[in-house]
């Protein structure tokens, strides 16, 4: 049952994906008008480093939700309004399974039905449901109808005919209007209103239970709408909370992490954790081109081509090490016996390792026993044992050195990317001036923008290729990877140099030609880099020199 449903879901996404890509393609057509035709040759064909996804606005998510609600109500054969809270508490597929198994349990858990003990005493209409749990399963066909009738009962405030009603919350006996859920806990509508408003407004809660103590019945949408009366703002806030919860429960959906952006993205291709070893689901929420984020992890930027697990490892390492690595390098040495890092903060050169009690000379790193009585002065630099000790020392230094090599490049690309954007801001001003002073048209001075954008994009790619290279195992594959990296890097450096070259109205035409050519080349190189890496992931070509989450078994099997 559940797989059927998911399958139809998939189809729905696919159709929309194609539409989206068409739109995407034509949108970028206009932007790059100034560029040669072959630029867009890849349009329509999906690149292997791109993951199909669909940006959704708030309204579209609501539509999605409505659709899910309808689907479930169709399958269960229950009223639409009953499904709303249902859908929100359990992942869809499991929900259907569980419902088929034991509808009462699901309804109780969803706060739509009272646990049986209470049902007996309070709800007349549900008398038929009070049998032992097993029997409810056979009464499946009764379920829909009783659900519907219950809904009607819930949203119709029972009219109080007999005796003055004293609301147990505000102790007011002048209130005539009362409301209650199926549990029949009556309260005046003013209290309901205040309660629901406070839940939604101050607690940000969409899961509002009956006000009575220990009553787990949940107020359905219609009831809330009714209770809120004309309070549109709170109702809208409630809707928003529902949508938020819906998105957070749905593995295919994710909100855009950018501040005050309300869009979400649907990316069914990246909904499970296991696919993250083969794809890098960088998605865009559609609100702005810069709103790019990773669907698979919490890094809120494009970390292509490297996969989430490796990117995360790298960032973690940088956080742990980068600040201190340099300091360690310049201020400490390792004990040549146990490799613990030692800082010499004064005193003589006769060192005793606190950990392994090894005694050595700080200057030559050789064992102290060979120094005899030559305290405070080391003249034994060339002795064999000291050389050995220094070798061991340099080996452990080498790993730090290696890390710093990658880290410096990684950081450098980030820095350069920022600087090139800053530089562009200046260039842009000059361009605008030039537009006014010379007879160049707007379109003719736009090539710079495109080039800077491309440099920025490629530097981001390059940045992450260093993170990836750090963890790649030595071998032909890594050599190929580094070749691609080098080509891209060279091209990017050349282009950034061109961007920075001074320009005058007379030379602008040639500069424009050069920059445009280079931009196209860089773009191609970037494409190759991304394509090849992405394909490598899909083919399982990359081998790591550390254990990467999700790769464990594959690695062991092949080595």
């Amino acid at each position: 049952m559940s797989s059927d449903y998911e399958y139809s879901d998939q189809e729905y996404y696919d159709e929309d994906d194609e539409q989206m890509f068409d739109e995407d393609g034509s949108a970028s057509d206009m932007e790059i008008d100034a560029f040669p035709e072959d630029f867009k040759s890849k349009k329509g064909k999906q690149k292997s480093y791109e993951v199909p996804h669909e940006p959704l606005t708030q309204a579209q998510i609501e539509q999605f939700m409505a659709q899910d609600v309808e689907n479930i109500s169709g399958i269960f054969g229950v009223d639409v309004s009953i499904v709303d809270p249902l859908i929100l508490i359990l992942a869809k597929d499991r929900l259907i399974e569980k419902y088929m198994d034991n509808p009462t349990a699901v309804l109780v858990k969803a706060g739509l039905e009272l646990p049986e003990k209470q049902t007996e005493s309070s709800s007349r209409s549900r008398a038929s449901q009070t049998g032992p749990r097993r029997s409810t399963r056979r009464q499946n066909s009764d379920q829909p109808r009783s659900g519907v009738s219950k809904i009607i009962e819930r949203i119709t405030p029972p009219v109080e005919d007999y005796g003055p009603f004293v609301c147990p919350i505000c102790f007011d006996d002048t209130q005539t209007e009362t409301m209650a859920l199926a549990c029949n806990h009556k309260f005046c509508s003013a209290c309901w209103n205040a309660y629901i408003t406070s839940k939604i407004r101050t607690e940000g809660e969409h899961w509002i239970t009956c006000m009575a103590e220990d009553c787990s019945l949940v107020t359905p949408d219609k009831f809330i709408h009714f209770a809120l009366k004309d309070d549109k703002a709170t109702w809208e806030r409630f809707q928003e909370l529902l949508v938020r919860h819906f998105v957070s429960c749905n593995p295919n959906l994710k909100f855009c992490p950018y501040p005050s952006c309300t869009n979400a993205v649907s990316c069914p291709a990246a909904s499970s954790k296991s696919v993250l070893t083969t794809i890098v689901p960088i998605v865009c929420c559609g609100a702005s081109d810069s709103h790019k984020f990773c669907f698979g992890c919490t890094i809120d930027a494009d970390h292509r081509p490297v996969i989430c697990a490796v990117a995360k490892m790298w960032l973690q390492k940088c956080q742990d090490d980068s600040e201190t690595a340099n300091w360690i390098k310049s201020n400490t040495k390792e004990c040549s016996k146990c490799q613990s890092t030692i800082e010499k903060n004064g005193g003589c050169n006769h060192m005793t390792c606190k950990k392994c009690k090894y005694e050595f000379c700080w200057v030559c790193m050789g064992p102290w026993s060979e120094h005899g009585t030559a305290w405070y002065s080391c003249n034994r630099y060339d002795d064999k044992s000291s050389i050995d000790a220094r070798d061991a020392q340099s080996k452990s230094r080498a790993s730090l050195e290696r890390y710093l090599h990658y880290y410096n490049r990684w950081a450098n690309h980030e820095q350069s990317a920022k600087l090139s954007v800053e530089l562009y801001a200046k260039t842009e001003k000059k361009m605008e001036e030039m537009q006014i002073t010379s007879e160049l048209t707007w379109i003719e001075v736009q090539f710079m923008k495109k080039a800077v954008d491309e440099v920025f994009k490629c530097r981001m790619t390059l940045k992450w290729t260093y993170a990836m290279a750090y963890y790649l195992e030595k071998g032909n594959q890594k050599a190929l990877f580094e070749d691609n990296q080098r080509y891209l890097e060279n091209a990017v450096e050349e282009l950034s140099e061109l961007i920075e070259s001074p320009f005058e109205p007379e030379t602008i035409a040639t500069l424009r030609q050069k920059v445009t050519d280079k931009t196209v080349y860089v773009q191609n190189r970037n494409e190759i880099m991304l394509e090849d890496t992405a394909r490598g992931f899909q083919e399982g070509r990359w081998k790591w020199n550390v254990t990467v989450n999700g790769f464990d078994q594959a690695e062991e099997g092949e080595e």
Partner: protein
Amino acid sequence: MDARLRRVNKEILDCKNDRASNIQVDLIDNSPFHLKGSFNGPEGTPYEGGHFEVDIVIPDSYPFQPVKMKFITKVYHPNISSASGAICLDILKDAWSPVLTLKSTLISLQSLLCSPEPNDPQDAEVAKHYMTSRSSFEETARYWTMIYAGGPGKEGLKSGAKSGSKDEVAMAGLEKAHVDQFEALGFDRSKVIDVLRRMNYRGANVAKINDDRVVEELLK
């Protein structure tokens, strides 16, 4: 009239009229939104005979948000902070329901004294004490009740205690012999009490913690 004020007034009146439950609610600084509730320690517990006072603040969105309560009287109890009087009780947090009243909440506090929940502690040190040695915990709780809540205390508990001076060792739920032992090593008495309390140097634990570790802690 404001619904919140009407409700609070009615609740205060309810408590006044109900003599049977022995729950009192009084105004602090003349505002009906800042109150002092009090009740007697439940019978058959170490709190028996004590009179406990609770500070009550009625929030603006009462009764839709829970009242804020904390003990004014110091209480030795796993779910009540021995320092601040803060209370860990579900109905004062997420299990609050608008139908609960001041009276019912105070009764819940009273029953909290009967049935501590050491697995969800507010005061971890007290909870540890409770888990290690129930009888020692009860003795300390009784001592606190006597000192702070005007309880009768156990006959012949500690000779000097009755005269009004507080016995720090009993307050911390420790054995006088243990404190003397470490004090004899030259450490400050209050520091010894503090460390032993933190290390839960009670009951079966005494055998598990060796003296060196205690000294190490004392030297820190």
